[in-house]
């Protein structure tokens, strides 16, 4: 597996997603008599379909918001577009009775820690892979990319047993006694850095002109200082893409939290939703409130940082 086999980050799509209105699609023939009316009708039909599909895509989310403000009685009283009696008791119950405030905090802690450690480790590592020469560099980088071919299901049992037996013993030698990793610590530990973030950072550093570092070299700056003072300030877009990708992925994640989180007090929102769903099947308002709590932060980040999400998609392609 070599670097060339990986899909490039679709920069064009990134810009396109952010920029509005630049005509670039199929050229519509104009100026031919009779064509114009046909074109206009076609345009109306296309917009009608587009808005219908967009509405269709939005309905599940809008419906969950609507239900999150209902009373339970309202949810079984037949169809109504908006709540008959608006109430925030769904949110109140979700936060207080069913602990989703706590779960949101847990999700934020895990996602925050994983994001931060990815930013630090992937940017330093990415800098080294892009710029520093050391024997075996290409082999090591291929090894990093190779990890994308190793699915979670193969790692499940070995990692679980390592977290039960070995890791606590190792950190015990370092003075951290009776540590447990079948919990939040384990979820964070096994996601400290990902091949995807390392790949994205390296690719970005490769695009930065070398002149800037040469200048730093003349100032006799060391490698860490060059990384810290020259490269890192220029890597804003890559850091944003990695940060957003990691935060979104970890905030939404289900698999490893489902495997490792056993104490209710450490549940993340997705695990909380799964547990709630199997226990209180038809208490829709608090469940929909919990879903809104799970979705809203990602929606806000998406609205503000739309174009960085596209880099994330490209790397989703790297997986596998």
């Amino acid at each position, binding site marked *: 597996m070599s670097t060339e086999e990986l899909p490039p980050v679709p920069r064009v799509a990134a810009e396109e997603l952010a920029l509005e209105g630049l005509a670039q699609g199929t050229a519509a023939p104009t100026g031919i008599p009779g064509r114009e009316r046909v074109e206009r009708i076609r345009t109306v039909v296309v917009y009608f379909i587009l808005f219908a599909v967009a509405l269709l895509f939005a309905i599940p989310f809008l419906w969950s918001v609507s239900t999150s403000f209902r009373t339970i009685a309202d949810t079984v009283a037949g169809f109504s577009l908006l709540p008959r009696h608006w109430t925030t008791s769904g949110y109140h119950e979700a936060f207080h009775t069913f602990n989703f405030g706590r779960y949101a905090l847990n999700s934020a802690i895990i996602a925050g820690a994983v994001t931060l450690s990815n930013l630090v480790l992937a940017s330093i590592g990415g800098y080294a892979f892009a710029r520093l020469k050391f024997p075996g560099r290409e082999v090591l980088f291929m090894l990093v990319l190779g990890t994308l071919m*190793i699915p979670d*299901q193969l790692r499940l049992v070995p990692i679980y047993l390592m977290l039960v037996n070995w890791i606590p013993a190792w950190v015990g030698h370092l003075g951290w006694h009776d540590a447990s990793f079948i919990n939040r610590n384990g979820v964070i530990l096994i996601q400290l*850095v990902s091949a995807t973030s*390392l790949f994205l950072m390296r690719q970005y550093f490769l695009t930065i002109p070398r002149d800037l570092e040469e200048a730093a070299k003349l100032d006799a700056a060391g490698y860490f200082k060059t990384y810290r003072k020259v490269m890192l300030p220029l890597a804003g877009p890559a850091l944003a893409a990695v940060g957003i990708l990691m935060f979104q992925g970890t905030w939404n994640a289900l698999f490893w939290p489902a495997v490792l989180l056993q104490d209710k007090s450490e549940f993340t929102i997705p695990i909380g939703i799964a547990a709630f769903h199997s226990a209180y099947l038809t208490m829709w308002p608090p469940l*929909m409130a919990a879903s809104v709590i799970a979705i809203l932060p990602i929606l806000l980040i998406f609205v503000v940082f739309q174009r960085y999400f596209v880099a994330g998609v490209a790397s989703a392609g790297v997986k596998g």
Partner: protein
Amino acid sequence: MAVAVAKRRRVGGGLGSERTREALVGYGFVAVPMAFFLLFFIFPIGYAFYISRYDWQIFKGPFVGWDNYRTLYHDSVFWRHAVRNTLVYTATVVPLQMALGLALAVVVNQAIRFRTFFRAAFYFPSLAASAAVAAIATYILASDGLFNTILDHLGYHHNNAWFAQQSTALPAIIGLNAWTTSGTIMIFYLAALQAIPIDVYEAAAIDGAGAWRTFRKITFPLLKPGHFFVAVVSIIGALQMFDQSFLIGGASGGPNYSTLTTVLYLYNQAIANIKFGYGAAVGVVLFAFIFTVTVIQRLLFGKAEVA
């Protein structure tokens, strides 16, 4: 301190020592990630195989050779339900999400107003938490849910919860995931579409080719590398489906195994039933299968790229 060392290098060191220093710093900078990947990715491959050769439940038991694999070979729940469901799911959801994603991409690649809005609206379901989306889907597809209400108005009466019935649970998950994944597929196809040179379309327009003909004769064939890439990513993703089955069908993949997938079965054996040796064997077999699929795809189609 780094400055001081660097100065010393410039004064005293020859080319050799500077190179050595650069290499040492390089190893230092990648040391933590490399140790991490070795420990949590490379090593577990061998360790999984090792575990799979033992009767390992809560504690490590005796060496049993290939027994866990033999048991798996005769495990009817695994083959008749988990494998079957996963293959049915993959064979159905992949074409569906590819067709939907391509349709969305072609439309939002046109010169239209509110293009950014449409792209965002179609893309967002892929980004929302699978747990939340599954919860919403359960609500909408409940026996008295929105979907059945709409069907009722259209004259079809369906009074059962779609996820609670053995015959409709997996198809409902297929529909759900085709919808949520189509946004991601759309972004992949957008990148591929934008790699098609615009003069090709101009030539088609001069020849008087209509929209459908242009799509069928020009766009679709020129997207060939895009199709391969999207297919590879989709198949590998679909073979590893876990979230929706876990959320909707529970750890056992109910009702009556109808939503049980291979990864969910592995989770169930290893974590719920604490059969580590057997779970490891399931993991090794699934890995071998996915790896084979990947290699075959590579051999058949060569490099998979967006554009």
